[in-house]
């Protein structure tokens, strides 16, 4: 770990000023990922700007029926918040599928969006990695890539985004509120994370002196028919091989609205508007789910060890949509896949 300066931001504007003053600075809230990366010398910030005491911990309903969540709300508080449990149980479920209780207690909503990949080469400074050191090469491409991406990859990087929460947020059409030197802006969560392209070292579209202030959930919560299914190498406390967030609106057995997002398969939560459109107006049957899965996985490419992910994802999508349609969402507390 390198030596670093520490500063505590007094308000959001102060945090932005401090960020702008030091290009090597990083914001810290829960620190559940950043501290790990600092211990491994992957992140070497010149300064940590502590934002953990900023007043960004509210969960508020807005006049138009959407919900505004402060960037510093702890993951566990959010998962167990009555409004989330009632109106957005898909989000609560996805959060509880991630990490451990102790980590969720520390981790903030904004920090969760900023999680970096768990690619083993990214974590090991003795190996080449384009994300950690641009142009040094991608070790995963022809190395250990069982956990790696099958969608939206580039010749430079096949890393995945490790977040569960973001997958549900993508499905729910969440917006990210951002503040910077030139004021506030809002972008869709699906535009917040980037594909690796030839700049895999840039994970998100957050500007250099910008800060996430909150997340906004649109009024449609898909609280009746939803499920979050995470497939991993053990039943808890492991990153997703594949995860699926599914949300449906049904009229009888007919699908009037559908949302799907995948985790563990790409550099960002993976959505396909085409796949969702294909479900609308269809009966909620395995055949239609299967066709939607194929559309969602269109263009998948695999490397030597992650070929299984395509079929696994296809089956997981069908299973999750079935759980959603039957209103029998996957439990994150039971020791089994429903």
């Amino acid at each position, binding site marked *: *770990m*390198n*030596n670093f300066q520490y500063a505590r931001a007094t308000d959001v504007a102060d945090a932005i000023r401090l960020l702008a003053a030091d290009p090597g600075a990083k914001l810290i809230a829960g620190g559940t990922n950043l501290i790990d990366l600092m*211990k*491994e*010398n992957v992140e070497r910030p010149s300064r940590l700007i502590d934002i953990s005491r900023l007043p960004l911990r509210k969960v508020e309903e807005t006049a138009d029926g959407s919900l505004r969540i402060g960037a510093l709300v702890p993951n566990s508080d959010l998962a167990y918040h009555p409004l989330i449990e009632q109106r957005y149980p898909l989000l609560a479920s996805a959060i509880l599928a991630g990490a451990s209780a102790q980590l969720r207690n520390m981790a903030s909503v904004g920090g969760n969006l900023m999680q970096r990949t*768990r690619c*083993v*080469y990214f974590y*090991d400074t*003795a*190996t080449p990695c384009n994300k950690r050191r641009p142009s040094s090469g991608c*070790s995963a491409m022809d*190395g*250990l890539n*069982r956990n790696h991406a099958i969608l939206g990859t580039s010749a430079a990087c096949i890393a995945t985004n490790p977040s569960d929460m973001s997958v549900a947020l993508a499905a729910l059409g969440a917006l990210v509120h951002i503040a910077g030197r030139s004021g506030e802006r809002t972008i869709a969560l699906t535009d917040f994370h980037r594909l690796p392209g030839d700049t895999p070292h840039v994970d998100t579209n957050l500007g250099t002196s910008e800060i996430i202030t909150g997340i906004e959930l649109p009024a449609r919560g898909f609280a009746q028919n939803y499920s979050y299914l995470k*497939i991993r*190498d*053990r*039943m*808890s*406390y*492991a990153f997703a*091989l594949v995860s699926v967030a599914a949300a449906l609106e049904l009229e009888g057995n007919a699908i009037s609205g559908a949302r799907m997002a995948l985790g563990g398969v790409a550099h960002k939560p993976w959505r396909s508007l085409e796949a969702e459109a294909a479900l609308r107006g269809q009966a909620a049957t395995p055949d239609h789910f299967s066709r939607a899965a194929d559309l969602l996985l269109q263009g998948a490419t695999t490397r030597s060890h992650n070929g*299984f992910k395509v*079929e*696994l994802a296809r*089956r*997981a999508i069908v*299973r999750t949509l079935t759980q959603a349609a039957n209103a029998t969402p996957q439990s994150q507390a039971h*020791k*089994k*896949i429903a």
Partner: protein
Amino acid sequence: MNAYIGTPTSRVDGRAKVTGAAKYAGEFPADGLLHGFVVEATIPCGRIARLDTSAALQVKGVLDVLTHANRPPLADKDEAWRDEVAPEGSPFRPLYDDTVKFNGQPIALVVAEDWETAKFAATLVRVEYEQRGFATDLEGERGKAAEMDKPHKPRGDAAATLAQARVRHEAEYVIPTEHHNPMELYATTAIWDSNGKLTIYDKTQGVQNVHKFLCGVFDKKPDDIRVASPYVGGAFGSGLRPQYQVVLATLGALALKRSVRVVLTRQQMYGLGYRPMTIERVGLGAKSDGTLDAVTHEAIAVTSRYEDFARNDTGWAEQLYSSPNSRFSHKLVHLDVSTPCDMRAPGAASGVCALECAMDELSVALKLDPIELRLKCYSDRDQSENLPYTSKQLRECYARGADAFGWSRRNPAPRSMRDGKELVGWGMATGVWEALQMPVAVRIVLTSNGHAEVSCAASDIGTGTYTIVAQVAADALGLPIENISVRLADSTLPQAPVEGGSWMAASSAHAVLAAAEEVRKELLRLAGKIHGSPLAGAELADTVLTDGSIARASDNRRAVSIADAMRHGGVERIEKEKLNQFGEDKKHARNTHSAVFAEVKVDELLGVIRVTRVVSAIAAGRILNTKTGRSQIMGGVVWGIGMALHEETVMDHRFGRIMNANIAEYHIPVNADVHDIDVIFVDEPDAHINALGIKGLGEIGIVGVPAAIANAVYHATGKRIRRFPITLDKVLD
């Protein structure tokens, strides 16, 4: 005499552990304590061309950076570096010279006023290497495997019989490299005192092994160094040999004449020992009735370039199953990695896994129930030496285990049982381990208030040695257990070997008995001198210590209290030390056994595997403590689940580096992976092995578990996975 032995006595050190009063090696304070942080090599093979420590030395708070170039003297002969359990070869010497033998090798120690400063300065040490060609891939290099001494002698002509066998099964099973990952990090606090003597608090399974090693490596007299390790937060074999951090902390203390602590990081612990990857080839030839004609088992295992670490992977079939022809071989491939080491049930965990999967495959080929096949081949004698066992209740393990599990309701056809979306599989396997015992000495100090201190250099690595020593001492001295205090794991205490191999329960218990007998002898002498003593003229053999008194065994109303005997004798304390040695018995084989039954449920479409039930029926002689014993077996079962489904140290052979050196990516079972575990201790009276009939439980709990689970996965899915761990991608259609 048996108020405590055989009961579920709670851990006597439980309160100290849960309240934090129990101190571990990295927790002992010292005035002016310095902290060392290890710099590791990032190549697997070559030499250090340049090591620039100047930037690190300029950091405020850094006192020194020790390297091969500036360290205090270290022994130059291999003998000095060879500890009590070292394999053949030339042991690794940290900071000895400029050669790099494995990735993660320590190459410098930054010593600073605080740990964070040392860790930061370590990032400033600049290293240039001359890298050499290297190889780390066992499967790629298997052609270079070299035969070790045969573990068991061949009998008959196994190859020819196997080739002609009516029913034959031959296959290769691959067990990956696995790391112990004990909860406690490896740590040493080396405390320097003003006259130059050192007290070393070390995480180890053997304080006297470390003591002798340090005296040799640093050319010190026995009195110059004391090694203590009062509590160990798990080790599982990784602490049998002195680890490099104890050398580095001692080097730091000698160089700076200050106290120094070195705590390894979790990641650095992957540079220590590990269960070696093995390729296990098993051949079984049977008659159509299920009796075996031939058994062959060849293991190819990884070791380092500098030591030949080999364990008995093969040859267990010789003890378990009757067969007129057998051949076993163990081959090593030397690679550019650190030396493997013992890990819970070394050899057996891997070798029996392969054997028991192969037996399951043979039972399928024979269309015979897996238990029936094992009973057809049951052997009441250890065939390698043609000896009967001191005791062997394996038949009872099969029967009791099968009954508790409900095995008779099993439909033998694969994919025939299901529960909703899940395929259900039932599998079983046999487990076997040795019942070893070693010389151990114990000292008992009995005071006239009826309190005894029992001391021994043996370690308690979390298994419960403190508790069983207290139990046996309380019974042998006829005192309540609250009156017994136990001191362990200090090199100045009476002799004990490393704690391993499941030998410490039997070994320490009988040493307590032996020392207690010396105490009783002295009490009899004192009591006999009392005028009109009820014990006058009593033979030692006709006395017992009971209820705070010494009494005639034939009539315990004729007794003298300990207090009276000592008061009359004019003594305040009786101190007796006794080395217990077990008589050599060449007429018996000594083993523990188990029958393990596992239920798995496999999601048919998604491949997710759950181990929903395990029944482990154990025959291990008398169980000293049914509570800690049950915990031991449950721990072994949980680890067996990990070995079957999760654990694998993953290396990128292009870099010769372990890539999942942390417990986020190196998976072990978590609570959600563990369901019902039923432990059955089968009665196994043993009049031959030792006075108490104890065999030890440390290893047997894991043996057979991975195979039982793999066999259950086959039964559930019809897929035979021979490459461990069985991850879901391997069972997906």
